[in-house]
């Protein structure tokens, strides 16, 4: 078992290296210096305390969406709707933050709760359709994404319109933001916010649920073999609904960390890319909570460093997204990497055997 785990890490690292190599190739093709590009990319993510804080803040929603995708995946479900769940979670949190005036801890807790419920609802619908009618969750969550997109598109201007622009909501007041002065102070003015601690807590909670509870065992059993777990007397329908609901809730909280933590208002007409990046995070972290943390931090650095790289060189910031997308492709085709590793092992194994003779 131990060998298998370390092997997964090796495969993930190779996928990262291949993704970075592909990024270097694209920089070369377009006539840029990849060494310079990567130096500025990683300096932009890690150069000083403030930038490290920004990388953590960028990683926060990715941890949540990554957890969301990974959690559903363990039940054999593919949650491609984390973006929509984030939007609804963010909308609910923003609505509470702009409407209620309460003591700060209570208000923040209520906002997170609202985000939790909104996201959960957006996961519950596809989960229910899957369990009850066997509607494929991929298509259902894609539809839910666009329903969320248009819901925000019309709700924000109608009820929470900003003072200047039709296309964004009012700024949430300082007391309703997850960005608190003491934390911003520690990280010298970065975007890092309380969402980070929520995300770390979520990693713990999901880790415990998956590995230490009966529910987690049942969810994983349904993921391995739906029919076997049904035969063993587990309520698979309920578990599918529950799994999608929890996945949606996680992404919903991710939306709160983005829209009332990292940012302070909602823009309409944007489907956040974090939901799709979450698939990459989950895949690279082999669907374990710790793996999700590691890969989300890595993608956080890439995303927060790309702006600095763009400012210092002529390389367009989209290289960051290209690298992430390429890493997913290599993670999806990990069979190729595994075959390569096996071939290497065989060759070195033979040589060792020859040397021993």
């Amino acid at each position: 078992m131990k060998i298998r785990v370390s092997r997964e890490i090796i495969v993930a690292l190779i996928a990262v290296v291949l993704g970075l190599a592909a990024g270097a190739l694209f920089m070369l093709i377009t006539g840029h210096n990849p060494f310079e590009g990567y130096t500025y990319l990683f300096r932009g993510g890690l150069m000083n305390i403030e930038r490290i804080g920004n990388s953590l803040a960028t990683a926060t929603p990715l941890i949540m969406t990554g957890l969301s995708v990974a959690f559903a995946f363990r039940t054999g479900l593919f949650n491609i709707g984390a973006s929509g769940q984030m939007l609804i979670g963010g909308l609910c949190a923003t609505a509470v933050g702009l409407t209620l005036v309460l003591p700060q801890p209570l208000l923040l807790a209520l906002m997170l709760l609202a985000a939790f419920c909104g996201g959960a609802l957006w996961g519950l619908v596809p989960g229910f359709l899957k369990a009850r009618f066997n509607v494929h969750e991929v298509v259902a969550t894609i539809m839910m994404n666009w329903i969320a997109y248009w819901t925000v598109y019309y709700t924000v201007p109608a009820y929470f319109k900003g003072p200047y622009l039709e296309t964004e909501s009012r700024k949430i007041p300082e007391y309703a933001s997850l960005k608190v002065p003491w934390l911003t102070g520690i990280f010298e003015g970065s975007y890092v916010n309380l969402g980070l601690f929520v995300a770390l807590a979520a990693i713990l909670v999901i880790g415990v649920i998956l590995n230490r509870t009966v529910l987690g065992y049942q969810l994983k059993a349904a993921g391995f073999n739906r029919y076997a777990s049904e035969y063993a007397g587990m309520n698979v329908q309920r578990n599918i609904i529950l799994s999608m609901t929890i996945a949606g809730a996680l992404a919903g909280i991710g939306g709160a960390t983005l829209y009332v933590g990292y940012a302070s208002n909602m823009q309409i007409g944007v489907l956040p890319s974090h939901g799709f990046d979450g698939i990459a995070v989950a895949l690279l972290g082999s669907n374990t909570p710790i793996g999700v943390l590691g890969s989300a931090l890595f993608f956080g650095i890439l995303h927060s460093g790309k702006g600095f790289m763009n400012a210092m060189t002529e390389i367009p910031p989209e290289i960051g997204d290209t690298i992430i997308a390429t890493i997913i492709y290599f993670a999806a085709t990990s069979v190729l990497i595994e075959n390569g590793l096996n071939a290497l092992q065989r060759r070195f194994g033979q040589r060792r055997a020859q040397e021993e003779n």
Partner: protein
Amino acid sequence: MWAVITQIFPYAIAFTVPLLITSLGGLFSERSGVVNIGLEGLMVVGSFTSALTISGLYPAMGSAAVWIGLGAAILAGAAFSLLHAFASINLNANQVISGTAINMIAGALTVFFARNITGSGNIQIVSGLSRRSIPLLKDLPFIGRLFFTQTYTTTWLVLLILLAAWFLIYKTPFGLRLRSCGEHPQAADAAGVNVYLIRYIGVLFSGAFAGLGGAIILVTYSGEFNGSVAGLGFLALASLIFGQWKPLGILAATFFFGFASTVANVSQVIPALALIPGLVLKAFPYVVTLIALVIFSKSSQAPRAAGEPFDHGKR
């Protein structure tokens, strides 16, 4: 009401055609047994390639550049779809993840290249296709006004492809092989069909058609590449399911979505529709798809083996 319909009809058709051709591409892929969720990304690739070709060649060639751009988009879409084919046919990768990767790579990489070229990441074309009316047929009562005035040549091209696709799928040996690979690849394999080859052809078709779809958006109503096709690829996927994996079903489904989306877009200027909240109109196609999925869930015509990697040894 009639006046309103004749007014919005050309827009509805212009919106339907790229959906139709992309969905038709998805049909070939899924009927061969490969789920292609990367249609959105393949459309973006087509849109990018045609924008680049047309903006480059237009000064020298004039309007002929538009047709070369469409051809280039077909080739680029097919070439890009090879990534998905290789992953899902040769490497048994999870087809949904591979398709998602295609979407993300296409969206990021095309804007990356576009920024290197134009700085802003948008590529505009000077001139696209112009609308024209069909002589004689346009004078027919009723349908002449709806179908034969103000049409794009690409609309007729896509309808021709639709007919050809129907013939290919249902009336030729290739079509039978394609369908059998999507239903029961082991049986097809036992009958001597090269499942890998057929699946490659299916995915290549989806890439070529989606590329063409993206390019048609560019040369008909958008006129500018901006790194996205606004979810049309996903809507094409929904149409494929709504049309129950049949060419004529797809025609009906895409026209339904095209008409519904156009109505939503123009609802502000039509008094009768302005009363309905925009959200209802915009979310309508997606909600209807969810409902349709529920209704069809008992009698789904989905290819049995779609999404499953083919394994020689498995029986």
